């Protein structure tokens, strides 16, 4: 504080920790300018490669930030901690996969006319997701959330001539608008009760407000915010948009929504509720015992939401004939499983969530890459387009089998251990009913995952011609397959890595600059 700069306090902050965000912002700006000055007819794939490079560089800076102490700038509006770094790496790798899938998707089908804006809107969406992961102030969290949402509304509707794409984009805007209004309404009450938008200050003041007879408002704002965030993670009170939007969206964007956008939703849910509601303690007048509100009261509702998502997602997925709708319902069920660690709140809550998200990232990205390839080849999104895939592209069929097994949670895949850890957390918490529902719905999910496998191996396809696999899709499938199997064979190193490199405790250290 000795040297006085004309920038005042701003010059004191360590801005270098923000370099991943700055790089993504810079690349998105650069792409939009390049797109503006490029020849209209020119091939836009170069933009995709520049964007891809930017993602790699940003990933390098995130890796450089990991394992460091907490850095907080702008009064906790932006902070770097283990939680943020873990989620940022997840987003960056998810978007890298999406770029690789998009290269093939846009290359062949001419249905996205302005592919330049497609690429930089993915980057702005990524920027929003990264802000959501590394901020602990309601205002910046909200701006990040909306940056992600608004970019993805446009991305869903990029196939302007395609009537389903228009319709799904409009449905997405309407549901998203209502969801953000509900979230904001909840946030406004939290602000009114505590007089701050900083999550740590909220955490300090919420307990006293809770005792002063405003407990109803505290619960009310919790539920409003949870319903609003449920839209992003597509769990039960707010899941009905997912099937329609996934069906109408371009397939790479459906992959983006199902992995990156959902993970960003979990980032904001965990960040907001663990920090601001985590220390809220209720006092039982009769027994004189103190108990955490989040653990005792709210977790029951979260568990109910999780159970309802599993049941509805898995049962409705069985009836689908469109593969993207099926993946949407499967995504609703997966989000239900992902809420279980948050409902049970064991010591390893963060590691379990993160492991499952990583398993889900690999399995879903690989599956969507193959879905895109097959749908484009057969010109239909029907489940039947997978018929005879084993005879046309045996390696793709085998890889798809692994991805589906991982989503179903069967052994030698990452999904098995992901589900196993989550299942154990429910047992440890002695939520046997939740564990039971998890088990039962997993069995139900075998039906539709194996439906795809049956098509691939046992049904004759319309054609026996070998399916040509472009290099970028091959790369995505290879990386996803290696990740799925490696984390399925050696889950412990992955868990240890998450535990040591991304300590959750850092999240609870206020920066206080």
């Amino acid at each position, binding site marked *: 504080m000795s040297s006085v700069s004309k920038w005042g306090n701003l010059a004191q902050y360590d801005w270098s920790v923000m370099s991943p965000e700055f790089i993504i912002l810079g690349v998105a700006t650069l792409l939009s300018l390049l797109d503006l000055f490029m020849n209209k007819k020119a091939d836009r794939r170069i933009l995709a490669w520049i964007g891809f490079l930017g993602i790699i560089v940003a990933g390098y800076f995130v890796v450089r930030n990991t394992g460091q102490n907490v850095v907080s700038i702008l009064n906790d509006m932006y902070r770097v901690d283990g939680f943020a770094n873990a989620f940022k790496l997840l987003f960056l790798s998810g978007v890298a996969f999406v770029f690789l899938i998009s290269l093939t998707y846009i290359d062949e089908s001419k249905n996205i006319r302005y592919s330049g804006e497609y690429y930089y809107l993915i980057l702005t969406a990524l920027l929003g997701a990264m802000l959501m992961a590394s901020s602990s102030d309601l205002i910046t969290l909200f701006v990040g959330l909306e940056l992600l949402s608004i970019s993805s509304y446009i991305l869903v509707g990029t196939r302007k001539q395609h009537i389903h794409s228009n319709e799904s984009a409009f449905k997405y805007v309407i549901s998203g608008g*209502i969801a953000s209004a509900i979230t904001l309404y909840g946030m406004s009450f939290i602000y009114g009760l*505590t007089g701050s938008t900083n999550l740590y200050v909220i955490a300090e003041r919420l307990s006293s407000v809770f005792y002063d007879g405003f407990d109803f408002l505290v619960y009310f704002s919790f539920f409003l915010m949870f319903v609003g965030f449920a839209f992003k993670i597509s769990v039960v009170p707010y899941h009905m948009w997912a099937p329609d939007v996934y069906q109408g969206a371009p397939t790479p964007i459906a992959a983006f929504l199902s992995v990156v956008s959902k993970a960003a939703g979990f980032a904001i849910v965990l960040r907001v509720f663990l920090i601001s509601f985590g220390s809220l303690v209720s006092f039982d007048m009769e027994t004189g015992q103190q108990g955490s509100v989040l653990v005792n009261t709210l977790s029951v509702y979260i568990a109910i939401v999780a159970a309802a998502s599993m049941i509805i997602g898995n049962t409705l997925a069985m009836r689908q004939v469109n593969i993207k709708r099926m993946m949407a319902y499967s995504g609703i069920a997966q989000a239900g499983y992902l809420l279980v660690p948050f409902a049970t709140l064991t010591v390893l809550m963060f590691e379990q969530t993160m492991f499952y998200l990583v398993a889900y990232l690999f399995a879903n990205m690989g599956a969507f890459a193959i879905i895109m390839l097959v749908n484009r080849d057969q010109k239909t999104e029907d489940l039947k387009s997978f018929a005879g895939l084993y005879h046309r592209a045996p390696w793709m069929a085998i890889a798809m089998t692994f991805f589906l097994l991982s989503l179903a949670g069967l052994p030698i895949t990452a999904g098995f251990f992901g589900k196993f850890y989550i299942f154990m957390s429910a047992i440890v918490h002695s939520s046997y009913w939740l564990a039971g529902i998890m088990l039962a719905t997993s069995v139900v999910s075998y039906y539709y995952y194996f439906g795809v496998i049956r098509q691939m191996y046992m049904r004759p396809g319309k054609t026996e011609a070998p399916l040509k696999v472009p290099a970028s899709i091959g790369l995505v499938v290879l990386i996803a397959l290696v990740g799925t199997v490696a984390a399925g064979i050696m889950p412990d190193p992955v868990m240890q890595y998450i535990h040591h490199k991304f300590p959750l405790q850092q999240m609870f250290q206020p920066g206080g600059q």
Partner: protein
Amino acid sequence: MSIPVTSYLLVALILFCIGLYGALTKRNAVIVLLSIELMLNAVNINLVAFAKYGMFPNISGQIFSLFTITVAAAEAAVGLAILISLYRNRNTVQVDEMDLMKR
């Protein structure tokens, strides 16, 4: 003369409920978008009222409402743009006719 904070909150609550009702029941897509704006404006009333009469009155509420207004404008612009591209292909703004996908 001071008006108690509850009356502001009541106005906001009524506005929010009207907005939610409109967004869920109206058939015209433009009215649905307007209803969402009503819900967001309810939030702004809340924030500004809390910034003056809240438990800990301070300026952050007004700042927050500025952000909300900006973001709401962006969202409305994108929503209308998508509605126009939908209208070009379908010639309708009736929400209940946008049901091509479940069939």
